[in-house]
């Protein structure tokens, strides 16, 4: 998987993460790392362009969750400690759609994974990159 970043300007600055290739347990940490670097450099709003992401496993969902938590200003659990780290991260706040992290144009097999786990209730999905950037 290759992840490129592009800075765009809507009503606010937005960093677009463009993922190409296959997102699985061998590569999801790379996506988190790229997002973290952008976040550490001041990004507060991110879009993940999934139009050239040809595959996503459950580990990709962990990356999406980690990025969403990071952009809320919270520290995501370290995935190196295993999936169980995420159980420890659970708390009681009610959350709706994430305000700082949105998805664009997932391919059918990736979209299906998002649907199967109900992630689209919490991460807005756009068909168009410009619309996603303008939505912040």
């Amino acid at each position, binding site marked *: 998987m290759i992840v490129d970043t592009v800075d765009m300007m809507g009503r606010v600055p937005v960093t677009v993460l463009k993922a190409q290739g296959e997102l*699985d347990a061998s590569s999801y940490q790379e996506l988190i790392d790229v997002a973290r670097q952008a976040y550490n450099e001041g990004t507060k709003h991110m879009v993940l362009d999934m139009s050239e992401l040809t595959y996503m496993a459950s580990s990709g969902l962990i990356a999406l969750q980690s990025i969403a938590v990071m952009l809320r200003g919270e520290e995501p659990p370290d995935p190196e400690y295993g999936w169980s780290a*995420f159980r420890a991260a659970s708390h009681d706040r009610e959350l709706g759609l994430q305000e700082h992290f949105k998805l664009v144009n997932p391919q059918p097999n990736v979209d299906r994974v998002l649907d199967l786990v109900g992630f689209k209730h919490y991460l807005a999905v756009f068909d168009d990159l410009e619309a996603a950037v303008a939505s912040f």
Partner: protein
Amino acid sequence: MPSGVLEGPVAAMGSETGTIVLKTELEGKDEQGRPVLELALDAGLDELAAIRHQVERAGRALGLGPKALSDLCLAVDEAVTNIVEHAYGGKGGQVVLSLSATDDVVKVVLRDWGEAFEPQAVPMPDVDAPLDQRQVGGLGLFLMRQVMDSVCFNFDRHNGNQLTMIKRREGGKA
């Protein structure tokens, strides 16, 4: 080396990364003349993409459609990831994969010799829970159960863990 009644060519497969210690592919025919695929490999996370591509190629040869191929690859990927991460503690280890089909179903069997896996010990994720209240740890198993019609684990002290997953073919074009 996987057991089973296999005929046809036996090809030793190389590795682009050089990390696969053993990767032997046997493609042949079952008793009814249908193609079968068996892979014996030292699985690690770096091999996931190669395994998916092998399964996709074999599934296509079995006549599976795009959706069934996608589901099959996802289920195998999640299963192998679990084996590497949990059965072998992240270090990887030997996995034997067998893929076969009849007119009605496609069946994949994965065997490993790592720690026994107890699916009952993995809590099913609450997919309706808010994002950060989810127990992501069960998502891989959850996805396997969502995309396959049957997911069955067996642990044998001598013969290792065996995971059998079955997907029904819809009108022969699943």
